[in-house]
């Protein structure tokens, strides 16, 4: 019998709390492989890589085979173990790191791969990259995650879903059709509430506005943050507070005025209260005292000069903002705090995400869905949104749903608001869903989806695309890197992309060592339009594409196909084969 010791930096059970964090997706990969590994042998998840040797020794004692499968990039993988080890990793560049930096020899992946003597990767593109660095004879196998058999798949669709559909998600939903737009920002009756954790319990709240912090997510009408903080873009920028505030409150700013706004007196409003203050020339502390009778979630500034000065670049010089602190002017009796906590049912300061609630979603017409990590720039979601809105700005029958996979809405909310604001009103609908979807809700979302949309510049595998294709959903997608293994015009409207320069994502030196693809925006627009027309006018073509999508996935990521690759590459003994349940 074969024993598989398995390890991922963030194990599957930790995914929900770590969505979007570095290496979280290896937990997903392990979760997809594990049921198949269990058919091929015994699976033991280890908490620390060093534990693998003890399992190996035990297996040897009783004459069993043992493999240690490390679901992590090579620089996170252990070396020098007695147990035969292979990483299972995704990589989206045509070069693998072949030099060491930061005093970490494992950053030269060749040292790790040579120690293991083999590697499993998830795509042919990565296998080629490994062979390029390790030599043509190095044992490397492209084995995609066995996705196809992991879901309860619906019957193959004979026509595109177009009618009224209703499903629900646990989480937060942002809908561009609920916004009203002005030059200074966008507002929606729900937006403030959705980004708010509920009533404030009086605990001091600090929001840092630098590029590493989550504060900038709550800004409307500001530029992308820099290491020191950020500065405003429009005349009346705003901060969406993480809590709903009523009554006396002190707001401390670390701020200054830039250009013509240095020394300028501006106004700030919170609920029904308003104060004036002067923006200092140099960054300094400013204390604003409000006493709003209305519950308020938006702190807005007014009267900033926002014209583009002649000069170096085309950005306005408004108000610089480095930090914002909210606190009660006087201590609040503890029982009040406790009562507020009971009412809101949570401690706002300790919850970086958003309140979970089940939200029904009604859609009609053509639904394009994408499931992605919004802080992974390779997912390229701003292009997805802008090309969609350009293609369908006058088309109410088109909806784009982005299911954001990240633990914190703050990580992308400001970029999302900024983009939607700059696009303005459209007749097409953009829905952004924030939350972790259990399998049943995920399957309901698949069922409602007409096309899966993916504008990735590079992928090591792209499991959501494979999952939707498994469900028989045609795609609008780029065919670069790993997608080349399974995406063809038979099942997808292929979006053109071509290489551009980049650096390896974990290389802080940013040495230019790799290429990643840039998406041809016009091609993405065209693919949206063509797919929409096919869904509405050519149901037979759509049905053929749905069938092709599923057929491809059976062949690529069905359990029998993946099991065969694993057995071949790991030389699994006959005994292990005997334990294999026949895949369906």
């Amino acid at each position: 019998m074969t024993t598989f010791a398995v390890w991922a930096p963030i194990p599957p059970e930790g995914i929900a709390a770590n969505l979007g964090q570095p290496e979280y997706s290896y937990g997903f990969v392990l979760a997809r492989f594990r049921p198949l590994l269990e058919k091929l042998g015994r699976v033991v998840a280890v908490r620390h890589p060093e534990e693998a040797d003890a399992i190996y020794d035990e297996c040897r004692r009783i004459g069993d085979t043992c493999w240690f499968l490390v679901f992590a990039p090579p620089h996170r993988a252990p070396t020098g173990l007695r147990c035969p080890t292979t990483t299972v990793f995704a990589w989206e560049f045509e070069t693998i790191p072949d030099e060491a930096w930061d005093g970490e020899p494992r950053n030269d992946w060749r040292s790790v791969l040579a120690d293991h003597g083999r590697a499993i990767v998830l795509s042919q593109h990565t296998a080629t990259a490994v062979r390029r660095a390790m030599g043509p004879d190095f044992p490397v196998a492209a084995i995609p995650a066995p996705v196809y058999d992991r879901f309860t798949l619906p019957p193959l669709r004979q026509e595109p879903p177009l009618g009224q559909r209703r499903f629900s998600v646990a989480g937060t939903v942002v809908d561009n059709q609920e916004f009203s737009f002005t030059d200074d920002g966008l507002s929606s009756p729900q937006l403030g509430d959705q980004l708010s954790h509920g009533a404030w319990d009086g605990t001091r709240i600090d929001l840092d506005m630098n590029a590493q912090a989550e504060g900038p997510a709550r800004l409307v009408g500001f530029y992308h943050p820099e290491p020191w903080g950020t500065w405003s873009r429009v005349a009346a920028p705003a901060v969406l507070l993480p809590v709903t505030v009523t009554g006396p409150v002190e707001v401390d700013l670390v701020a200054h005025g830039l250009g013509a706004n240095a020394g300028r007196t501006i106004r700030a409003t919170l609920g029904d209260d308003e104060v004036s203050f002067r923006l200092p020339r140099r960054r300094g502390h400013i204390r604003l005292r409000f006493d709003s009778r209305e519950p308020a979630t938006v702190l807005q500034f007014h009267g900033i000069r926002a014209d583009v000065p002649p000069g170096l670049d085309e950005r306005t010089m408004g108000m610089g903002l480095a930090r914002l602190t909210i606190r009660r002017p006087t201590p609040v009796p503890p029982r009040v705090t406790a009562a507020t906590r009971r009412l809101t049912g949570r401690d706002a300061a300790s919850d970086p995400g958003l309140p979970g609630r089940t939200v029904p979603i009604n859609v009609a017409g053509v639904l394009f869905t994408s499931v992605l990590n919004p802080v992974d720039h390779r997912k390229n979601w701003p292009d997805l949104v802008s090309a969609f809105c350009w293609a369908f700005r006058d088309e109410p029958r088109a909806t784009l749903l982005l299911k954001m996979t990240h633990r914190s809405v703050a990580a992308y909310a400001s970029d999302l608001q900024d983009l939607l604001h700059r696009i303005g009103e459209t007749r097409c609908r953009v829905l952004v869903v924030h939350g972790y979807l259990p399998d049943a809700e995920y399957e309901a979302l698949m069922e409602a989806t007409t096309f899966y949309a993916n504008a990735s510049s590079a992928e090591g595998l792209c499991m959501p695309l494979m999952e939707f294709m498994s469900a028989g959903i045609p795609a609008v997608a780029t065919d670069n890197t790993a997608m080349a293994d399974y995406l063809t015009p038979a099942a997808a409207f292929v979006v053109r992309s071509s290489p551009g320069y980049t650096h390896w994502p974990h290389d802080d030196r940013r040495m230019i060592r790799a290429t990643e693809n840039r998406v041809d925006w016009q091609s993405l627009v065209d693919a949206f339009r063509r797919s929409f027309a096919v869904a509405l006018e050519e149901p037979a073509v759509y049905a053929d594409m749905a069938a092709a999508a599923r057929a491809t996935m059976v062949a690529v990521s069905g359990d029998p196909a993946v099991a065969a690759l694993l057995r071949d590459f790991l030389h699994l003994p006959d005994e292990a084969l005997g334990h294999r349940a026949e895949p369906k």
Partner: protein
Amino acid sequence: MTQQLRFLIHAPQDAKNMSAELGRADYSYRFVLQYFRPVLAEIGTVVELPDPHDLPDGLPGVTDVLLLFMPPHQIPLDLADRAIPVFAWEYTTIPTEPFGDDPRNDWREVLRRAPGAITHSQFAVTAVREAMGADYPVVSLPAPVWDTYAPLADRGPVNSVELTGAILDTATSDPAVGAMPTPTSGTTSLDFTGPVFTTVVNPYDGRKVWADTITAYVAALREEPDATLVLKLVHHDRDLALAAAWDFMHRLSPYRCRILAVHGYLTDLQFAELIAATTFVVNSSRGEGQCLPLMEFMSAGVPAIAPDHTALADYIDADDAFVVGSWPEWAWWPHDPRRFLRCLRHPVDWDSLRSAFNDAHHAATSDPGTVHAMGVTASQRLGSHCSRETVTVGLRRFLTTEGVVRDR
């Protein structure tokens, strides 16, 4: 034209300070004005106004034509009904929203009152007409640069130049070293052994654009020690400009091809020498209102590596350039602080730029006759595009358009 014309002309900023202002947004309007002077002098008299409001007294029998070299949103409203804006534009739509409480930001407000408008490309003419109507009096008159540079087209091979300014040179400083070396200063003599690719860039104006050039160059010609890329940096802050260049020169290492970053205000003779030593002039922009450097180099018989979008469509094709692919994407009018997505720009296809460097290098080293012929074509085409004669004819015709010259 029967009546006598007096051109009253103005561009923002003072000519004395041009080198200090290099790289700032308005500097090119100044250059354009200078280029137009001889053409205007051909047709009438010319008076430059330090302040566009200080209009001189009228002269009997003389009709004044007020040309303001600035975008429409900068035209003073009280002059709007007599000023003809002369402006560059590289987006598919002109601004049609009065943002920031300034009605002029809706260009239609200004153009509707103006006698007409002069821009520098057919692309911009199309954008203006789409907003103003097909019969709106707008003309494309590129800056007449050709006559100044065309004589260089007859040059023999030039393999060395002397440049005054701060220079970073990978032939003398190892780019693998992270810290920026001290740039050479004063006048430096530089020798070239193979093809020279030159690009004139402001490293802080659309950062991605010149980064595309330097990265595509190294990606294409990493192992070619005879190739040289000259980055002629246009920016008022020497240290900032050089630091931005070195950042990429270092992060691309190792490579055997050569990169030179030059910061300084070259004399006319030095600029002519640089042009003469250049094999290909390179442009990788997302949009051009006309592109003076490209027109100057090409007038001098230097073929290009460039996309054929926006204004470049008027003079770039496969006969005078290695054409770089591009695609449209949603963008904003550059002076709109809201950054609302209202127009398209045209980023280049980096892979196509890389191929163009490869193809150009291959042609220069194995088929110099073809490269020479492309240069001859370039100079001829620019001659028909932007010679003084062409622009004079175009301007005369425009001035006869009804309503453009207004007697008062």
